[in-house]
């Protein structure tokens, strides 16, 4: 009964430059519509944060946070806790603006923080930050954090970007500099979710992988570690010396509720004040909207649901087959009926909010007649049982996803019928997460998978790890190009895009790459996910953001309206 683990939503925050996001619009309208009806006038009038941290708030998560060293391999529920215990140098707020946290300002080429060639970085830090144990925070901690990520003995959660850092130097307690081995534009975004750890504690640990710090973390965030009851909940309490805004809550609790249906009932009964990751299922949205004294917010997530194909299998080698399959999919029905119209149809792998999203990419069209004629023209003729075949290859394959996700299984079955109508046989073979997302996926043993994937590099629209031909793990590459997609022009565009800081050039490269990938169709995009979350009506400050992986990034500003 283990839930759909991280697999589907297994990714990280995003950053978008400018423009009001769709999530913001939807979120605002939902909140206004509901608050006008139910929120007592007094609550709205008095919605000012309290002078001292007061009250207690319970967050429901459908996965259990277990990793509290933010630099070790973790998933987004863990990050949901990290946001409150630790601080990054800067973060992207809900509008996508970079806001300094531990840094005094965000380095740019304009302010001289980053050199023109993108190689030399200089970051100035706030002087007034203290760790939860009272020790001062300084540039030494930043250097220690970066060094730790590059320490070959340390089980680092990622080395992407950090491994390019050279000559990390503590210039003064409030200033740190380093150089990059090559210009790497996504670095500034990667640092949005790199949390700093204390040198004075972890530096003394014999083995940072097993340090007691990992279960009793000390950070610089708005809340301090209080208690963890394994398998049940984690309690944090207000940090009175927090350098930023707030906190206004005395205590916050992260409650692990392993089943989404159960989590929804606890939201209904009020046992949890905020229903977080992985939120309310589309099935329950209509019910949720009608709840009294609750605010339910629909917002877009960066994850794109698609059918990923293993191009090394003979069925998918032919471009015509992939094109026909896409024409044969009734994506509109999937979105409108099975997902109640909440997510947004897409034919791209990037969320529409991203500044690199190309709005001119050809939209998806459902046209089974055209699908059939493409297959006919390409020589795929109906054989036994009406299944098309060519040169001994039958258009028959498996489709897999995480077992037990009922809504997605409905979509799978609809696709099965869609494709059956054009003479293609798809068999469903779903597996538990620990099986499907292991070698089966990573080493390209699959035919096709249905997956909601975040293709970008953190908040940056760099999709190299999924589409670069050097990123095929089955061929020894570093990355997640398990589709085994390979296109020399895409390689060139993505590499150029990641190595320049020039916005216009990057956008041009990414738009072009999107067009080529739309043409090649290594994957068949269906929709961009929507998250459905909610809070009690008098809980103020909840601000869903498309730039983070869990919406507990700003709990320091949350409070109970009195």
């Amino acid at each position, binding site marked *: 009964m283990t839930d759909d683990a991280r697999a589907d939503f297994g990714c990280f925050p995003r950053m978008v430059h400018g423009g009001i996001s769709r999530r913001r619009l939807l979120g605002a309208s939902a909140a206004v519509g509901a608050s006008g009806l139910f929120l007592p006038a007094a609550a709205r009038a008095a919605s000012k944060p309290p002078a001292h941290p007061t009250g*207690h708030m319970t967050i429901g998560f459908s996965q259990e946070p*277990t990793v509290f060293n933010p630099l070790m391999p973790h998933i987004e529920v863990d990050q949901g806790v990290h946001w409150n215990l630790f601080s990054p140098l800067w973060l992207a707020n809900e509008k996508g603006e970079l806001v300094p946290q531990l840094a005094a300002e965000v380095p740019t080429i304009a302010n001289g923080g980053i050199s023109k060639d993108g190689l030399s970085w200089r970051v100035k830090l706030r002087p007034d930050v203290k760790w939860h144990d009272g020790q001062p925070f300084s540039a030494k901690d930043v250097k220690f954090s970066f060094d730790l990520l590059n320490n070959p003995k340390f089980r680092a959660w990622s080395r992407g970007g950090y491994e390019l850092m050279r000559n990390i130097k503590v210039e003064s307690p409030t200033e740190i500099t380093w150089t990059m081995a090559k210009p790497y534009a996504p670095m500034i975004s990667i640092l949005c979710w790199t949390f700093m750890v204390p040198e004075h504690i972890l530096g003394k640990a014999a083995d940072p992988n097993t340090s007691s710090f990992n279960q009793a973390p000390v950070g610089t965030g708005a809340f301090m570690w209080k208690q963890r009851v394994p*398998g*049940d909940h984690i309690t944090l309490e207000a940090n009175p010396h927090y350098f930023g805004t707030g906190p206004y809550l005395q205590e916050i609790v992260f409650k692990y509720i*392993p089943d989404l249906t159960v989590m929804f009932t606890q939201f209904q009964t009020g046992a949890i004040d905020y229903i977080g990751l992985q939120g309310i299922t589309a099935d329950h949205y209509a019910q949720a909207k009608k709840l009294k004294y609750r605010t339910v917010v629909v917002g877009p997530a960066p994850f794109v649901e698609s059918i990923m194909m293993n191009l090394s299998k003979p069925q998918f080698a032919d471009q015509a087959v992939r094109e026909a399959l896409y024409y044969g999919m009734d994506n509109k029905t999937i979105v409108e009926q099975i997902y109640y119209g909440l997510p947004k149809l897409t034919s791209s792998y990037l969320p529409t909010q991203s500044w690199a999203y190309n709005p001119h990419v050809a939209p998806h069209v459902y046209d089974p007649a055209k699908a059939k004629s493409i297959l006919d023209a390409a020589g795929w003729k109906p054989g036994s049982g009406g299944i098309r075949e060519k040169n001994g290859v039958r258009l028959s394959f498996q489709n897999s996803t995480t077992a037990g996700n009922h809504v997605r299984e409905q979509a799978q079955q609809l696709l099965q019928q869609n494709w059956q109508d054009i003479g293609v046989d798809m068999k469903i073979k779903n597996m538990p997460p620990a099986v499907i997302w292991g*070698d089966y996926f990573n080493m390209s043993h699959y035919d096709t998978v249905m997956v909601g994937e*975040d293709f970008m590099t953190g908040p940056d629209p760099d999709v190299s790890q999924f589409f670069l031909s050097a990123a095929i*793990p089955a061929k020894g590459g*570093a990355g997640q190009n398990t589709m085994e997609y390979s296109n020399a022009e895409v390689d060139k565009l993505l590499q150029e895009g990641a190595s320049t800081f020039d916005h216009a050039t990057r956008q041009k490269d990414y738009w072009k790459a999107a067009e080529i990938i739309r043409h090649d169709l290594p994957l068949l995009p269906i929709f961009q996910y929507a998250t459905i979350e909610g809070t009690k009506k008098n809980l103020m400050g909840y601000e869903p953001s498309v730039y983070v992986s869990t919406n507990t990034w700003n709990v320091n500003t949350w409070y109970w309206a009195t």
Partner: protein
Amino acid sequence: MTRFLLRRLAQSLVLLWLVSVIGFAVLHLAPGGPLAEFTLIPGMTTAQLKLIAHQMGLDRPLPVQYWEWFRRMLAGNWGRSYRDSQPVLYVIAAHLWPTLELMVSSTVIAILLGTWVGVLGAIRRYSVFDYLATVGAMIALSIPTFWFGLVVIYIFSVKLAWLPAGNLYTIGNGSFLDYAVHLISPSIVLALVTIAIWSRYLRASMLEVVNQDYIRTARAKGVPEQTILFRHTIRNALLPMITIAGLQLPTLLSGALVTETVFTWPGMGRLFLDSIGYRDYPVVMGILMFSAVLVLLGNLAADLLYAAADPRIRLD
């Protein structure tokens, strides 16, 4: 008796060892693995995955890994959880109390109600009560616990707001009453299936005993029905129940997989499910060994009790 116990003990140790070998092999050879958790981290590379596997010791030959685990287990070091890197024994201990609380309360309910329903069903065979009890038991057995738990939550927690929708206690309120209120729905839901099982076995056993010669003899001698019922029938009918109880005993500590999930109960059953789901090998092996000991103890206790209660049976 001492020789019997010694022999059983020796046999049990061999069994435990076999269980550990088979369990270890199966767990590691089954598809999937703990690395799947890391595969989808953005920027994760094959080289880094290899490094993690090496640090976790997963790249060594299986017999070596087993020997390492076995040696340490004997020394009392059961390894650390892959998920939260806590010692396995600590993780098990942390989940033991909620399970014990839930299982004891539900077992008490189940045995009391189950005995009543079973005995009454047998005495008043083919009465309205018996039909209702039979059909009720069949319904209890045919409905998945998860589903039944959701219905209970939906009615009593969401609609009527009488009972909490799961959880061990209200965080921040550790009063006895709070614990007790939270215990009601899960213990009843969990007890339901046990009541069904217990009452069906007991009813069948009662009906067997009623027809035995000694009961007929007693009745012919004019012994009062009440005396027959309590002194002879129920006592003898409970004998076979010892086996059933012995089979149920381990669950007192190994927990209930589904009930604990639906009622957000941080017990052993859910720990086992989560650990299997993540392929947290050290914890799964720890729970496996722990529950194996319980099973062996439960069955041994049942065999001893059975022999003690029924003089016809020899221990051999």
